[in-house]
């Protein structure tokens, strides 16, 4: 209450009423639902002590799971940067039958419950599935291996690059490309020298968002991953396992490690977005 009061004294005057009420409700609800529970999480590993925390996080199995979650997400985000970039390009620049349907379909990973995505991907990429059966003679096993984790993490990050890139590509003025073409640049040269620098901030933002989403992903990954300790076990699954063993401190240590990484990511994304805004205004 004193917070809202002091804030309302410091804000610029406005004729619109309801500042104290709406800000008060917002801050109260935010604190109860998000901030206090998260603080509880941050405080929990304290009982382990500094060394205890690192002993949990640097344990072989935990480290393997963390590196799979982060490494796999990075790889998946890179795949999405390239292929998602192509999808965005095709959707904005070309006209082909069914374009609007394809455009709507891109958001499927946002709308499809992750558990459904998980069992569906497992069914398609299992050795007896539609694609798994085609890959098996080539000696490639996707489902129930680390490759399966990569497929799930790619699926979940698919819309981010497309959706961040689309508006930027739409706003891109054709004049610069025309000028480059008139001056004798090849199509590829003008893409690398003219288009890419313009869309790079958005491309990186989308990639970072896809990465951040994939790191914490659980539902779509656990069905297609083999969940073998040290090899195909993702970090969120290890949190669940520790919780089932009532090792709350251990579970929260992994959670805090992941949260710390997510914070750094959020910071990076914010900086990227600021760069993007500065670019489009400058």
């Amino acid at each position, binding site marked *: 209450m004193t917070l809202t009061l002091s*804030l309302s004294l*410091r*804000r610029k005057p*406005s*004729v*619109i*009423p309801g*500042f104290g009420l709406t*800000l008060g409700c*917002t801050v109260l609800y*935010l604190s109860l*639902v*998000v901030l206090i*529970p*998260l603080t*509880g999480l941050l405080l929990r590993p304290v009982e382990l002590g500094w060394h205890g925390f690192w002993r949990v996080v640097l344990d072989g199995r935990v480290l393997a799971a963390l590196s799979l979650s982060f490494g796999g997400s990075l790889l998946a985000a890179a795949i999405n940067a390239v292929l998602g970039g*192509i999808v965005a*390009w095709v959707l904005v620049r*070309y006209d082909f039958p069914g374009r609007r349907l*394809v455009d709507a*379909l891109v*958001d*499927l990973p*946002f*709308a*499809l*419950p*992750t*558990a*459904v*995505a998980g*069992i*569906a991907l497992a*069914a398609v990429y299992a050795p007896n*599935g539609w*694609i798994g059966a085609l890959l098996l003679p080539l000696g490639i096993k996707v489902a129930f291996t680390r490759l399966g984790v990569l497929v799930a993490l790619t*699926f979940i990050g*698919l819309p981010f690059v497309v959706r961040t890139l689309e508006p930027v590509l739409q706003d891109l003025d*054709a004049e610069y490309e*025309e000028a*480059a073409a008139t001056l004798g640049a090849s*199509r590829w040269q003008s893409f690398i020298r003219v288009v890419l620098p313009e869309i790079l901030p958005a491309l990186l933002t989308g990639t970072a968002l896809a990465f*951040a989403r994939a790191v*914490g*992903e*659980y*539902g779509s990954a656990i069905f297609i991953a083999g969940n073998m300790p040290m090899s195909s076990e993702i970090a*969120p*699954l290890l*949190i*669940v396992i520790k*919780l089932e063993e009532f090792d*709350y401190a251990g*579970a*929260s240590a992994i*959670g805090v490690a*992941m949260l710390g990484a*997510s914070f750094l*990511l*959020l910071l990076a994304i914010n900086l990227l977005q600021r760069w993007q805004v500065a670019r489009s205004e400058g």
Partner: protein
Amino acid sequence: MKGSMSDRRAVGEQAWVRRLLVSLALGYLGLFLVLPLASVYVEALAKGIAPFLAAIVDPDALAAIRLTLLVAAIAVPCNAVFGLCASWAVAKFDFPGKSLLVTLIDLPFSVSPVVSGLVYVLLFGAHGWFGPWLQAHHIKIIFGIAGIVLATIFVTFPFVARELIPLMQQQGREEEEAAILLGASGRQTFWRVTLPNAKWGLLYGVLLCNARAMGEFGAVSVVSGHIRGLTLTMPLHVELLYNEYDFVGAFSVASLLSLLALVTLTLKSLLEWRFRSDEQAGAA
């Protein structure tokens, strides 16, 4: 739009490059989106229509459907009201710490779903801060419906707010200020000016919020006790059936959830189209 299309043709790619890029894009979406979606329905109907229907009218499945609807019916309105409050405060006033507040509202998006469930277990679980007190008073949050609702609220927290804040910021304050100066009360201004202006954005946020609330798996899985017919939402029921090797059952319930996803996507496209035509009408 047509004009700019043909302008671009002047600097466009050669036909084979264009064809290659389109097939790459469609191939990628086909492999990762269309095939998995189709497989849900194929697997659900693998043994015919009768087992499919039986899996859906199974009492446990019906209980899961009811629980999912109940959880969404609580979580979505909570977050919608919050979204309206937050966007009013952020869009209509200037105050220090505003960008921090907006960042904090987005926070649940960057938290793993499993961690979102974990935070409530740490607070209300048997070994949590309030666990012993809750047990002494026979209040069940973790492994109960309250825990599922809380975890769902956490996960879907930013959806409505993040749609409304940029929209209301863009719409500015002049209309509200005019209404107030003409003698409208705050409540009248909200119902007659702000809400009609923001209605498509609100609907859009509610739609996405609802899809996530009904489909959430990770967070809910941590706080649900996995008690059949009692604390299983639809996604958790799918997992249970799948782990029991009842694939037809799992994919049958999953097909309902993917139907929800398809309806959501259709409504979303309709809203976007509606929104755009409203904007164009406003501009003209």
